[in-house]
């Protein structure tokens, strides 16, 4: 039988206090004789030595650090599915134009207001002439991608988005189009892409 006890001072052994009560589950105390105490000290010293042996082994082991921009252990490394990197506007593969229909839903839904679109034309002719995304404002919440009826906007897995001036954080339409052409939308999560395609077809494009 173990009992819950308040502990004081030096508790020998791996007894962790309960996070709720702060009490420790301690086995009933045996009398601490001199030999017992010496044995405990020896045991503790041995465990400490074992720990040092482990760290010493790791010290000589091959290092796992990838010195990324200078030396890349794995070329063309891509993050896992669902990674939200740089933005892109997707070009339709049939008409060779942007899929975007300038419905301004992404601009409206964006919580940080980082999208700015200037539309032009009416009906089927409606398209954006200017499309700005401020990457410095964006919080990568994915809402614009969710809301887009044309599946025109996405985030590519490109993680090398560092720039040297804040102005370059504002992506304009040419940049976004180029990104879309470079990455297409193959990197989107597959199911999301398929459902988007299906919906697009259903609307009778």
């Amino acid at each position, binding site marked *: 039988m173990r009992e819950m006890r308040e502990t004081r001072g030096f508790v020998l052994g791996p007894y962790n206090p309960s996070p709720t009560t702060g009490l420790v589950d301690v086995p009933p105390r045996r009398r601490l004789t001199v030999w017992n105490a010496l044995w405990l000290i020896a045991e503790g010293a041995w465990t400490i030595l074992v720990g040092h042996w482990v*760290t010493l082994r*790791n010290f000589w082991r091959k*290092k796992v650090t990838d010195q990324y921009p200078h030396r890349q252990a794995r070329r063309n490394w891509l993050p896992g599915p669902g990674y939200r990197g740089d933005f892109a506007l997707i070009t339709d593969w049939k008409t060779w134009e942007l899929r975007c229909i300038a419905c301004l839903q992404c601009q409206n839904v964006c919580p940080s207001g980082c999208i700015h679109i200037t539309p032009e034309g009416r009906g089927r002719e409606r398209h954006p002439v200017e499309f700005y995304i401020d990457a410095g404002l964006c919080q990568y919440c994915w809402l614009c991608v969710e809301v887009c009826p044309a599946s025109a906007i996405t985030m590519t897995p490109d993680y090398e988005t560092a720039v040297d001036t804040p102005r370059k954080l504002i992506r304009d339409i040419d940049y976004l189009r180029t990104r879309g052409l470079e990455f297409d939308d193959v990197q989107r999560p597959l199911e999301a892409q398929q459902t988007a395609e299906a919906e697009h077809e259903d609307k009778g494009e």
Partner: protein
Amino acid sequence: MIADWAERIRAFSEGLCTRFGIPGLLVDVLAWIFGAIFVLLLITVVALAAIYLERKVSGYIQSRLGPMRVGPIGLFQTPMDALKLLEKEDIVPRDADRFLHLLGPVLLVSATVMMFAVIPWDVRANVGRWLDWEIGLLYLVAVSGIGMLGIVCGGWGSNNKWSLLGALRGVAQLISYEIPLVLAAMCVVLQAETLSLSQMVEQQQAGIWAWFLWRPWLMLPAILLLIAGIAEVNRTPFDIPEAESELVAGFHTEYSGMKFGLFFLAEYTHLFVVGLLFAVLFLGGWASPLGGSNLPFEGLVWLNLKAWIFVLIAMWVRWTLPRLRVDQLMAMCWKLLIPASFAALVIVGVVLMYA
């Protein structure tokens, strides 16, 4: 005969004196000044090297590479960080006690620097040859006690509860661990029958087997000094005063800029001094483990080598063991180390009396 480079420095300052017509007695003053410059350069280099080494060792132990970017293998990372600290703004909290806030790092660093005064670097070579004191060890212990006041002043002066808690814990820890440290050192004093550090070294000069470490009755004090020394510089198994997970950064939470840098400097310099002390007490100080030899600067090299080995061991311990809890820390000191050090003192006394 060991080439006495201290004599060369002295000869150099004598030359300066005759050149500029300075009276002969001031040769000693000049030698002190040279010694002080030597120590100041040394602590800068030592602190930078120790911080670099710490980063590398921690990285290697965790299968990382550590700093690699600035300089050949990251060698310039620490100087660059020091430069960054120098140019950073010095922020003092609004309701802080400015006097004490400034006094904290100053006291800590000056205590650490003062400890170098009695270290025997080579045969008859201390700072300016004057401070080969009969009370060397007493001086060392006494001066290290002043650093504790720096912690209190810094912790209280920043008007922050984390700082205050860190300072209180730190002082409690330092006062407690000073007892086993001093008692373990007293065992060596019993063996050497002197308080002067250079005389202790002279008794261990004959080679590696003359070191005090190999006397069986002095092994327990050596272990105690190792543990208490690591605790004395607030390093990780004992870094309760700056426990990041509980107190933000302990007593230097509210420090920035060069004052923070001074805390860092003091920490690593203090570590090195404790290494030097350990080397002098147990590892033969500047004496070569091969016995007598006569290369120039040899003593300096040997002493540094031994001290750096201690520093490396301290880093190894730091990156292996987790932090103790406050009560565990104090219990370990008062229930384990202090009785053990008293026992060691008695054992050494009895052995030396009947041996």
